[in-house]
């Protein structure tokens, strides 16, 4: 039997209503990435993670467990699972099996984003445990009643905290606040900008100390919903990298399969495999911009590709450029190592 849709969606809706997120995270998982960064609490402008990077390792673990159950007789008991989940958060326990390595990766991406924004002179705060999941999975799966309630709750909370401007870090949270919230929340007037837009607007000076080549994988949501496809290329070029385009890129980008992970894992793997073939034809060093794209392509590529988030790549270039030797010795640009991060 395929994975039954209704109980899984029911668990998502129940979790958001009872626990504030489709996949509740511990305070440590949600906010631990910011430890030691001395980010001011709150403020009018805040960096808003929407828990997406932090949540992806848990979603990946859950999706792996679901893929083991796909087409087994155990799927008949998912209805009971939903009932139990109302009292004990099963999804929280499933999330505990998340890969620590992937969790560290997600945390590092967020820290790299902070480094890049600070490097560009942007001032912002962070809400820590006052930040909530934005509701993307509810919206995409058509759970509009639960989504609407959640969106109104999140907005009221942000207004109570005096937040006027959000700097989002992933495509799904950006889309929620810019395209979905205004339909569901009366007079939604919080300004929403994405960190790639903020960085690109600062027109970072070109760096000559780094060279290298990356293949860009655009997020469907950034490219086709949010019109963010030029900014990442501009930033990569300014960081000293040359950008290679796969067969389908920019507005015509190919999905990574991520949206199907929770309900149709086998199909998600087929699609991510197709995308890996397209990316590999252009090179080994791939840059992604979305936590779901990163986790899916990393999994599908195994050792065929080195997949890095754009923030990690840009921050690595910045560090390499900062550590460059005296001008007389910089005639030959340094080659960015596969993997990007120092």
């Amino acid at each position, binding site marked *: 039997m395929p994975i039954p*849709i209704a109980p899984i969606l*029911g668990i998502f809706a129940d979790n958001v209503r009872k626990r504030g997120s489709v996949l509740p995270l511990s305070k440590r998982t949600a906010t631990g990435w910011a430890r030691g960064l001395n980010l001011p609490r709150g403020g009018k402008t805040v960096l808003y993670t929407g828990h997406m990077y932090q949540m992806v390792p848990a979603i990946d673990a859950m999706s792996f467990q679901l893929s083991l159950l796909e087409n087994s007789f155990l799927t008949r008991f998912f209805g009971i699972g939903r009932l139990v989940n109302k009292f004990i958060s099963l999804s929280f326990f499933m999330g505990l099996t998340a890969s620590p390595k992937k969790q560290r990766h997600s945390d590092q991406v967020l820290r790299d984003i902070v480094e890049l924004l600070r490097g560009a002179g942007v001032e912002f705060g962070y809400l820590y445990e006052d930040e909530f999941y934005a509701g993307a999975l509810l919206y995409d*799966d*058509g759970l*509009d009643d639960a989504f609407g309630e959640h969106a109104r709750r999140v907005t009221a909370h942000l207004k109570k905290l005096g937040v006027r401007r959000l700097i989002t870090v992933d495509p799904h949270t950006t889309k929620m606040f810019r395209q979905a919230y205004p339909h569901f929340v009366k007079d939604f007037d919080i300004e929403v900008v994405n960190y790639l837009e903020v960085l690109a607007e600062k027109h970072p000076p070109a760096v000559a100390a780094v060279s290298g080549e990356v293949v860009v994988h655009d997020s*469907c949501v950034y490219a086709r919903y949010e019109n963010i496809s030029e900014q990442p290329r501009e930033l990569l070029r300014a960081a000293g990298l040359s950008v290679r385009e796969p067969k389908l890129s920019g507005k*015509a980008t190919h999905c990574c399969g991520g949206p199907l992970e929770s309900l149709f894992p086998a199909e998600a793997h087929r699609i991510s495999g197709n995308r890996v073939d397209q990316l590999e034809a252009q090179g080994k060093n791939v840059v992604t911009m979305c936590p779901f794209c990163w986790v899916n392509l990393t999994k599908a590529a195994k050792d065929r590709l080195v997949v890095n988030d754009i923030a990690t790549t840009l921050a690595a270039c910045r560090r390499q450029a900062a550590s460059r030797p005296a001008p007389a010795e910089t005639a030959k640009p340094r080659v960015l190592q596969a993997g990007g991060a120092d």
Partner: protein
Amino acid sequence: MVSRVNPGFRREIAKLGADERGTSEFNAEACFNCGTCTALCPLGYQILPRKLFHEVRLGLEDKIRAEIPQIFSCLLCRMCEENCPQGVHITENMRILRYLINRQEFGLK
């Protein structure tokens, strides 16, 4: 083969799209069945989305019910919508169908 037709289905779904949630209207009417969406779909499903919208226009509720797994497997990646010559809100239409199924079939709110 005989199919049951619900003539009010189109209006019912349009109401769901336009009134109750305040989001975009279900605009399957604009589809002229050219097949660009089907040709570009990364999933390669024949059903999505043109045949599905055709069934909505005809009020073939039972057929739509039979397509529930396909409706929920749409990636919402917008590859089809970006290239639709008629400007059909394909992804929003899919979401509205999901909303309808969640409420009417799954009892989810």
